[in-house]
């Protein structure tokens, strides 16, 4: 039967779709891989160890620029007026989280290319000698640049959470936990991505500094799990609409995505792998690739769950 008042199609509460979920994942992956790589560099420097040519840092230098650029391409294509996207670079409304994100990305994106340029300095000098001067200047600023990139990567990781939490009528999204959850999951995607690319393309020994990256996985996974618990326990105490939204993890298709994807692939598989797998497996290529792919898929599932389930429940 048709409604007398007309079609309800335009009133679908899910406005942002999987393209946004994939963008949020890509931005998190880029920011996370930068945070892990720069953190690892600082860790090595503080112990007086060499930091040149680390496979994990090389991996981050590939992942960070590629994933943020792919994410940006998706974001622009998703606009209803993609050819007029430049207006977002000219006009800034500073009450909007998105405007802050644009400012952060505007500085972050060129700097991750500089980071990659310094990591792959030798081949670049050989192929494009014209860049010698620029690379020299960047190298002299490397210390400060790394600090700036680290700070901006934090901003990029966190802003994607604030972007969603600013929407006041979606109880699952409108929480202070969301930015922390996104940062924690960005770090797990980033470290898993770094391990994956490092093992596949850059590692000579199969366990090159992957050990150190593994060490942050427990606290990161613990934080991610804690944020998820806080999110849903908090909803349970925040009034009837928020309470109704807790059914996002008990019923419907997104509940399976949550338990199988976010909890299963993202938390249970990687943690039980590092707890229970025999020592002989731990540094084998197949094992590292499987576990990091599982973590990455878990974070991708988390972004989809948050975007879709988050918008499905409105207060």
């Amino acid at each position: 039967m048709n409604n007398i008042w007309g079609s309800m199609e335009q009133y679908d509460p899910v406005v942002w779709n999987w393209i946004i979920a994939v963008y949020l994942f890509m931005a998190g992956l880029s920011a996370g891989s930068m945070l892990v790589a720069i953190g690892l560099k600082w860790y090595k420097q503080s112990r007086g160890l060499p930091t040149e040519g680390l496979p994990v840092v090389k991996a981050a230098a590939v992942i960070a620029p590629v994933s943020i650029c792919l994410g940006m391409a998706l974001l622009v294509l998703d606009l209803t007026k993609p050819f007029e996207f430049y207006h977002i670079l000219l006009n800034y409304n500073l009450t909007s989280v998105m405007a802050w994100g644009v400012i952060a990305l505007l500085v972050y994106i060129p700097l991750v290319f500089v980071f990659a340029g310094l990591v792959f300095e030798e081949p670049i000098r050989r192929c494009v000698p014209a860049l010698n001067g620029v690379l020299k200047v960047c190298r002299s600023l490397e210390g400060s640049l790394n600090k700036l990139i680290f700070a901006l990567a934090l901003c990029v990781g966190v802003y994607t959470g604030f972007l969603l939490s600013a929407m006041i009528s979606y109880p699952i999204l409108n929480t202070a936990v969301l930015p922390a959850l996104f940062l924690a999951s960005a770090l797990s995607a980033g470290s898993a991505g770094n391990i994956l690319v490092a093992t596949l393309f850059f590692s000579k020994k199969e366990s090159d500094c992957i050990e150190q990256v593994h060490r942050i996985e427990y606290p990161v996974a613990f934080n991610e799990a804690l944020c998820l618990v806080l999110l849903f326990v908090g909803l349970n105490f925040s009034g009837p609409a928020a309470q109704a939204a807790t059914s996002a993890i008990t019923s419907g298709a997104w509940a399976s995505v949550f338990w199988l994807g976010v909890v299963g692939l993202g938390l249970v598989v990687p943690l039980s792998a590092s707890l229970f797998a025999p020592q002989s497996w731990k540094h084998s290529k197949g094992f590292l690739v499987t576990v990091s792919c599982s973590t990455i898929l878990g974070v991708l599932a988390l972004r989809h769950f948050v975007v879709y389930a988050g918008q499905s429940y409105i207060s």
Partner: protein
Amino acid sequence: MTKRYVLVHDENKCIGCQACNVACRSENNVPESVTRIQVRIEGPHGNFPNLHFKYNRVSCEQCENAPCVKVCPTGAAYVADDGIVSINEKKCVGCLYCVAACPYKVRFINPDTKVPDKCDFCKKTRLARGESPACVSVCPTDALCFGDANDPQSEVSQLLDTKTNYQQKANLGTQPRVYRIPSRKGGIKA
């Protein structure tokens, strides 16, 4: 004194005839697949023989503290001098942030312009000529009342001062400028 345009919807007088919906469509050239205003007929509520329907007007609430304006990255969604939440089509890139952020779900993408569209109290046409919005003029039961709430003599001020009224989702702090006079039967569901 600046104007503060408000709309009052009397849910006792409304009969859900959709004349407002049709008038809005023709006045504002709203494409067929979308709509700026609906009056949803909800119910029946209550127990026989005390049954009643709820007539729920769904259109832009003209929030004084508008979430769509706060989240718009370019300032394309803005509150104009007349207090009406408006859209600058030239600045908009179509990120849909305002559509997602609106708690009342009344923003939609106009398929012709690719820009978010919504009720603007007919400000460029009828209001500019000193007339009431199309929905108000056409309403057969006078369920709608439009005017300046800053003028204590206006009909809307009198109505808001003398009749029980409520705003939808007041708990979100958006301060809507669409007020509703609740049906005399049953409870108020904001």
